[in-house]
């Protein structure tokens, strides 16, 4: 404790004044020679004790009052256990949660981000010129935060908008603590500003907070300069926020093929307590709105809306949905996705044992299943174009016009020249299906498909044959039943929509024992899309990755794997343990065979590029991911080849949601990178040929803006393009606050104080810096003691005197005196 006017503390000696007065007056009293002492005896004894107590109390109060007054005048300052930091300049690290949920605005109020900015501006206004500010935004955790002055920080803050993705607050505080290393000043304060959604304070977030707190404790123990953490909760009352949100837009068809109907599905959620009726819902393709729909969503319920639509042009298209709802959060009333519309999917079948007889070859049943309309004489185009060829022709075709899917049906020994080409084909995104056959021997196949530097391996090793190939299905022989397909494999989910085993009527006469390598199999029940997404991200980050875990798609009733899939590079290898021929099973003769093969091939042939990303996630475009912008299906392959030859003369442009930017490729493989994806929305990457480049002015630096005129010219004739869409997690639309327990634990873990207003935060910080002046409370105590002294004197000392004055006419003897003369 410090004193601002310590010298005034000597004023406390004034307590001697009442003490002396008391001692002087103690000897002053009146003496009365009293007769009726026997009436006073007991009263005197009791009164004397009471009077002593009262006088003592009064004396105490009268002594304390001048002492407290002197104490008050010294202006004591509470500084806690350590001395206040005073005027030492500080570095304020503002960890601002600018996720989408802060854009929510209660009815008639401004969005919470504006409130947060206003409060932060108040905090900034309290800073001095020597203080510095580091702004860490949750939407830009990857960016290196810069130091700035308070006024500049206020300007930066003015431009902040709540459009970021959901970020665990643990990570935000972790980034803020890392940013303290850049601080120039010894005194550091981290101010975490957020609305504290429950999703942002999950267990993982709390765990990160604990780690951060333990590191800070270690710093304190090592006498390093640890920052002080404060929390500002800018959440509105959550029950005042009513929100209708589009949670997701997904493509439910396995693949979208040009001129074929595709099904899209959107999930809408009404988080309010009142039903939303008559909402206008609009689907749009590439910005072209379709017929509006009217929907009703019950309170606290979810609605699914489907769109079946035919897209006539191949390429990447943006499918959007928007709903007109006047709710607290408008930004989540529209959501988009990017779909790749494939041209006809080219499938090349290589028959290991071709036959002149109808349906005699190993690939014949497959060829019919893949092109049913062409086989049946229908005029409608098949989504799949199936061609049966030989292995040697395939080698040539792989060089000239690689198909989407290659099916090797009963090929025992692929030509040696084919293997590296197949490897390259698969790693670059092609799909390979390998089927068993009568000529296939385990030794030959296992030898041919060995993993190596430039070669891929099949998902499983071939083993012995189980059962016998039945050339005469009527004969009695061993038959094997097929189990229900893996529910996680979405292309086949339409086969078992009636919940019955779609392969229940299938008799398998023979199949090959497949042996899976250990620790390479993932369970059937692992979420396939999640796995898919994981694999895709991994593929982007690690281009040299060879294989991933395999998944069994189909088993016998005994549990032996029949169909196994494995992602290799950016492509997929599917291995069958049997041949699709009526000698092996009656599967090709059953209705389930056609959709089974069709769906699988469509899934494999469809372009599965990762178009969606979270805001802030970097975009890397590889050479192979460019799509022909000139959507002529006949010339696409040729154009692709042509463009690959002209890569080195290409110019790259990016249209972000806000601006148009020219990019420079990174490295020799023409990879394009863009990291500033903080803005949710569409990012269109365009590649122009050399001739078109000549129309453009000289390119600027990497990721530099270009003049508007050039942008217009480029925009008119892009050669190749690809789309990426930054979408915000649906959790941000779930406007639900963290519980008190979560908040308490979070604050307790970080040893942080929680504030809701800047004024209280500034006061608390001032107290930390300078200590807390307590003169006001002492002054209050002085006033209380003065009042107590007066009360004590009036009520305990003077009371009886007042009573005596008021009750004089009614004294006992006065009444009895009036009865003089009467018989008592």
């Amino acid at each position, binding site marked *: 404790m410090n004193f601002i006017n310590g010298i005034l503390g000597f004023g406390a000696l004034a307590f001697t004044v009442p003490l002396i007065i008391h001692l002087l007056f103690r000897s002053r009293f*009146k003496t009365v020679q009293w*007769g009726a002492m*026997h009436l006073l005896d007991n009263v005197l004894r009791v009164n*004397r004790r009471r*009077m002593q107590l009262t006088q003592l109390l009064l004396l105490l109060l009268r002594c304390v009052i001048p002492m407290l007054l002197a104490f008050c005048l010294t202006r004591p300052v509470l500084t806690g256990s350590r001395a206040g930091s005073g005027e030492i300049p500080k570095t304020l690290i503002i960890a601002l949660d600018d996720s989408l949920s802060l854009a929510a605005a209660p009815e008639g109020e401004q969005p919470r981000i504006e409130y947060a900015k206003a409060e932060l501006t108040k905090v900034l206004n309290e800073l001095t010129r020597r203080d510095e500010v580091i702004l860490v935004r949750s939407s830009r955790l990857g960016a290196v935060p810069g130091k700035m002055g308070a006024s500049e920080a206020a300007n930066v803050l003015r431009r902040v908008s709540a459009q970021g993705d959901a970020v665990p607050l643990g990570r935000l505080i972790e980034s803020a603590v890392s940013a303290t290393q850049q601080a120039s000043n010894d005194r550091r304060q981290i101010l975490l500003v957020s609305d504290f959604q429950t999703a942002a304070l999950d267990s993982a977030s709390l765990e990160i907070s604990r780690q951060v707190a333990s590191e800070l404790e270690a710093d304190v123990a090592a006498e390093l300069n640890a920052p002080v953490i404060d929390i500002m909760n800018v959440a509105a009352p959550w029950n005042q926020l009513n929100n209708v949100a589009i949670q997701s837009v997904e493509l439910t068809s396995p693949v979208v093929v040009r001129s074929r109907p595709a099904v899209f599905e959107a999930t809408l959620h009404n988080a309010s307590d009142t039903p939303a009726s008559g909402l206008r819902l609009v689907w749009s393709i590439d910005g072209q709105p379709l017929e509006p729909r009217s929907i009703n969503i019950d309170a606290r319920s979810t609605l699914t809306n489907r769109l079946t639509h035919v897209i006539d042009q191949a390429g990447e298209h943006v499918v959007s949905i928007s709903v007109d709802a006047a709710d607290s959060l408008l930004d989540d009333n529209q959501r988009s996705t990017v779909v790749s519309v494939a041209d006809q999917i080219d499938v090349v079948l290589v028959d290991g044992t071709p036959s002149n007889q109808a349906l005699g070859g190993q690939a014949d049943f497959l060829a019919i299943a893949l092109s049913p309309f062409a086989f049946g004489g229908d005029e409608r185009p098949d989504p799949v174009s199936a061609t049966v060829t030989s292995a040697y022709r395939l080698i040539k075709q792989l060089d000239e016009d690689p198909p989407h899917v290659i099916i090797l049906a009963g090929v025992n020994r692929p030509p040696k020249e084919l293997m590296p080409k197949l490897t390259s084909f698969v790693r670059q995104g092609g799909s390979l299906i390998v089927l068993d056959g009568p000529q296939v021997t385990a030794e030959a196949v296992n030898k041919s498909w060995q993993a190596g530097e430039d070669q891929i391996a099949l998902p499983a090793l071939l083993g012995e044959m189980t059962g016998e190939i039945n050339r005469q299905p009527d004969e009695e022989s061993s038959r094997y039943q097929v189990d229900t397909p893996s529910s996680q494999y979405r292309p086949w989910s339409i086969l078992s929509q009636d919940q019955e085993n779609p392969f229940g009527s299938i008799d398998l006469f023979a199949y090959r024992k497949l042996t899976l390598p250990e620790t390479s199999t993932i369970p059937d029940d692992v979420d396939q899309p999640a796995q898919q997404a994981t694999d895709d991200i991994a593929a982007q980050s690690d281009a040299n990755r060879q294989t991933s875990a395999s998944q069994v798609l189909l088993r016998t009733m005994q549990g032996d794997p029949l169909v196994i899939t494995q992602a290799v590079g950016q492509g997929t290898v599917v291995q069958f343990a049997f041949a699709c021929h009526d000698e092996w099973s009656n599967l090709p003769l059953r209705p389930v065979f056609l959709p089974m093969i069709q769906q699988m091939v469509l899934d494999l042939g469809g372009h599965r590029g990762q178009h969606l990303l979270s805001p802030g996630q970097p975009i890397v475009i590889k050479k192979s991911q460019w799509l022909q912008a000139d959507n002529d299906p006949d010339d696409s392959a040729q154009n692709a080849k042509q463009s690959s030859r002209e890569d080195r003369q290409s110019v790259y442009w990016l249209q972000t949601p806000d601006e148009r930017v020219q990019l420079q490729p990174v490295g020799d493989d023409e990879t394009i990178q863009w990291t500033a994806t903080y803005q949710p929305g569409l990012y269109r990457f365009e590649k122009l040929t050399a001739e078109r480049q000549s129309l453009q002015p000289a390119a600027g630096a990497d990721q530099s803006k270009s003049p508007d005129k050039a942008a217009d010219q480029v925009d008119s004739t892009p050669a190749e393009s690809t789309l990426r869409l930054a979408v915000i997690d649906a959790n941000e639309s779930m406007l639900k606050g963290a519980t008190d327990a979560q908040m308490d634990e979070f604050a307790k873990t970080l040893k942080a104080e929680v504030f809701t207003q800047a004024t209280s935060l500034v006061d608390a910080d001032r107290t930390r810096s300078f200590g807390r002046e307590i003169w006001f409370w002492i002054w209050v105590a002085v006033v209380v003691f003065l009042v107590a002294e007066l009360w004590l004197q009036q009520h305990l000392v003077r009371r009886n005197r007042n009573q005596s004055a008021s009750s004089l006419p009614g004294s006992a003897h006065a009444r009895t*005196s009036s009865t003089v003369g009467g018989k008592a």
Partner: protein
Amino acid sequence: MRILDLVKPKDLSRLSQLQLLAKDVVEGYTTGRHRSPHKGFSVEFKEHRQYVQGDELKNIDWKVYGKSDRLYIRQYEEETTLRCNLLVDVSGSMNYAGDKAIEGNSKREYAVGLAASFAYFMLGQQDPVGLITFDNQLRREVPLRSRPGHLTPILTALTDKPTERETDLGSVFRKIVPKIGRRGLVVIISDSMGDVDSIATGLAQFRSRKHEVLFFQILDPDEVEFPFGGRIQFHDLEHAIAEQTVDAASIRGAYLERLEAHNGALRDACRRNRVDWIPVTTDQPMVDVLHQYVAARRRLVR
């Protein structure tokens, strides 16, 4: 010592007009103004009653016998004297003198005046008057006499040197009762400080001897109102006890409660024993008190 030293001439003239009448019939030897319960030789005829065996023959009214042939006894009203004993408290507590008392008199001086007035007035009626002063013991005794010169020894005894002893009315009354022979009027003048039960016992003994008792309780106005405030040290007039300084205002309520209880108990004791209790404060003129009392008695007797 003369009566004029104690009673003002104006008061004396008013006093002489008083005729104290015992409410009850008091037995006396001398013929006086008071009626006697004894039927004797008197000129005032009272009544006839039928002769019964044992009546003296001289009392038979022969004239009535002659007229009615029946024997009647003739009864006459007999007048008697009032034997008045004055019991005056001269204990230490009677020495208290408050500011409001008439001429700053103490309770004792007031009591002396009152007793002298009584004596003067009774002797004026040729009634015998005696005096006993006491505190916790009998101090002075003046026998009953009815001659006018008897006032001097009474006044001398009254103005004797005051004592500072405590009061014990109960035990003193028990000692006095045998000394007062025949029934008569007993006038007690005291501040009645002491145990009420003991006082009640004494009063009962007086009443058992057929005495008529007047109890004048003399209190100073200060003792009734307790108008003190501030730091006061009360010195006991009867005991030498440790002096105690108190806040007088704070004890007033408790004191008045105790005084009320004490007076209430005394009033009840007097009522039980058919004793006239007359509370008097020293700010009341004593002759007025006597006038009021006598007037009230007259109304009751008639």
